[in-house]
């Protein structure tokens, strides 16, 4: 019993080493066969090369687009805007609402805002702007000029856009709804699509407003996940009995944008895969032609005692070598193309292109290239190796 097991095990080892050993002469014969018709081989390799280039380059382009978008919109996914639900008859957020929002979200800062609109003017220039009343502007915004007070008690904070329109800076005076107010700070440009767009807004102390309640509250988190958790917590507690508030959550939007880019990547990869399939068909064609031409040679090999699987190995090695050469060339070309594009277009962030996830697309294309070679070579190889030598040798 144990003897039998031992024999079986050693037989398996022998079989495996024999299997590996058989590939060496196969690859050697295959590479010589490929050199016989160089033009045809080079064209087939070129086909795979283009296919691999298409898959790798389109994959990487899609990925860089997605990474770039993620990079650009990543920050705004950390804000949740809470507004009163007018449909439920809630006109504004009360102090109690703000308190319950604070209780619900926990860690993230909650910045309630009054809201109105007014004409803002300076030295003849004038514009119509949203005016927010805020007590703790430093929790939600950053100053490009001047300094944001911890408690906002006096003076105006201008959004980047309105400051540019009025050519106003910190220390200047602007006229807001008829009163002269000193500008204490100008905010950093934000480019956000939030309903609370600070670029074209003016921020005044809460005391400038006489409204009953807050128009909105911002929940400022450190990450998209924290923002989503905060939004969920508000829905569960503040909106538990009645939908008192509406939530505008950019994290969800960011998710959707990411989903879109995933779709785009898949679409681009699919596009590239089509050209790889075309390359596969050209390998199929080359291998069929070459095995038909070499029918007698293959017959001779079989006649003098070369096993069917060894003939199969030689032919598969030929197709595999075409695939591997094309894949290697295509991968190299992709790297050169991407490097060239990065150097030529300063708008592309090199860090995005050097992102390790792009390597995955290179590897994917490389594996696909070799795989396409072997799969396309399988049928011609099987067909040629299975032909009876007596038929193949017949003139």
């Amino acid at each position, binding site marked *: 019993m144990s003897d039998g097991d031992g024999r079986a095990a050693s*037989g*398996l080892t022998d*079989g*495996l080493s*024999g*299997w590996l*050993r*058989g590939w060496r*002469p*196969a690859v050697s*014969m295959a590479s*010589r*066969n490929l*050199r*016989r018709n160089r033009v045809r081989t080079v064209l087939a390799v070129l086909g795979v090369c283009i296919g691999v280039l298409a898959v790798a380059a389109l994959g990487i382009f899609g990925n860089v687009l997605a990474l770039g978008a993620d990079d650009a919109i990543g920050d705004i996914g950390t804000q949740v805007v809470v507004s009163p639900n007018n449909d439920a008859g809630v006109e504004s957020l009360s102090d109690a609402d703000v308190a319950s929002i604070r209780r619900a979200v926990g860690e993230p800062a909650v910045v309630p805002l009054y809201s109105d609109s007014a004409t803002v003017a300076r030295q003849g220039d004038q514009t119509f702007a949203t005016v927010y009343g805020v007590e703790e502007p430093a929790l939600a915004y950053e100053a490009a000029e001047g300094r944001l007070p911890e408690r906002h008690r006096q003076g105006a904070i201008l959004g980047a856009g309105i400051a540019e329109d009025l050519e106003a800076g910190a220390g200047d005076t602007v006229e807001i709804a008829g009163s002269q107010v000193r500008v204490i700070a100008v905010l950093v440009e934000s480019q956000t699509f939030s309903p609370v767009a600070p670029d074209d807004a003016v921020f005044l102390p809460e005391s400038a407003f006489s409204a009953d309640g807050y128009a909105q509250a911002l929940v400022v988190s450190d990450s998209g996940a924290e923002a989503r958790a905060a939004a969920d917590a508000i829905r569960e507690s503040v909106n538990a009995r009645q939908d008192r508030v509406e939530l505008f959550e950019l994290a969800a939007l960011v998710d959707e944008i990411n989903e879109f880019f995933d779709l785009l990547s898949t679409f681009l990869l699919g596009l590239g895969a089509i050209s790889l399939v075309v390359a596969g068909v050209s390998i199929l064609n080359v291998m069929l032609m070459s095995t038909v031409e070499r029918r*007698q*040679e293959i017959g*001779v*090999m*079989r*006649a*003098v*005692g*070369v*096993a*069917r*699987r*060894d003939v*199969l*190995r030689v032919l*598969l090695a030929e197709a595999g070598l075409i695939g591997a050469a094309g894949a290697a060339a295509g991968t190299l070309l992709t790297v050169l193309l991407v490097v060239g594009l990065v150097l030529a277009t300063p708008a592309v962030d090199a860090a995005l292109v050097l992102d390790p996830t792009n390597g995955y697309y290179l590897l994917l294309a490389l594996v696909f290239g070799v795989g396409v070679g072997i799969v396309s070579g399988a049928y011609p190889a099987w067909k040629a190796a299975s032909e*009876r*030598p*007596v038929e193949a*040798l017949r003139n």
Partner: protein
Amino acid sequence: MSGDAGLGAEPADDAAAAAVADEAGADASGGNTAPSDDYGVALRGVDKRYTSGGGEPVVALDDVDFAVRPGEFVAVVGPSGSGKSTLLNVLGLLDDPTAGRRLLDGTDVTNLSVAERTRARKESIGFVFQDFHLLPTLTAVENVAMPTAFDPGDASDRAADLLARFGLGDRLDHEPSELSGGQKQRVAIARALINEPAVLLADEPTGNLDTETGEAILAEFERVKAEGVAVVAVTHDPLVEEYADRVVDLTDGEMTGGLPADGLPADGPPGGETGDDR
């Protein structure tokens, strides 16, 4: 894929081959008057019919009895289409007989699987073709070693020795395109001998050679024969008949003189058709 097949197939082949050998051994020790392993290769009452389309089957070999002793050189002659190539294919395990038995080196090889036939060809049969059929991408020494290229061990030294024996010691690394016809045929003979076969089968071995080169090749056959190999050559060439120990005629699938004059293979049909030509 092929690896799996290999792992699975090899032991099965061994078992089958062993079974075949046992059976043949039993036959030999049984009621046989003459030992069947006296013959390098033998056919007993072999028929080969081809069915083409819906018409009458073509009879390529009709109840053929044929045997060649080790160290015997037999020439098979006959008009074109008489079944000579079919005979060679059946002898060489490239084609199976429709009926009858086939013996190779004392073993019944009538019904073998594809893998078993391939192995038997490699181990016991050498082929020499009219068109030499060397692989153009391989050097002379690689062509000679080609049947063993996928086996363990390196046969290059053996191949080089064989080529040296045939006077091609200085052509080892030449490709076929750099060799003359006679040299190519010598490479082909060396390839046929790489596994020390029991039988050498030659299809018009001198057909593409001038008389002088043809004679040189036939002289090589004599040397091969002297080493105990059974040599069968299918030919139109009168020169081959001169060198052969025995000439067998095959016309319309019927063979005359298929058996040696001095004996019958065991369990063969009664004699009477032997030794007509000599």
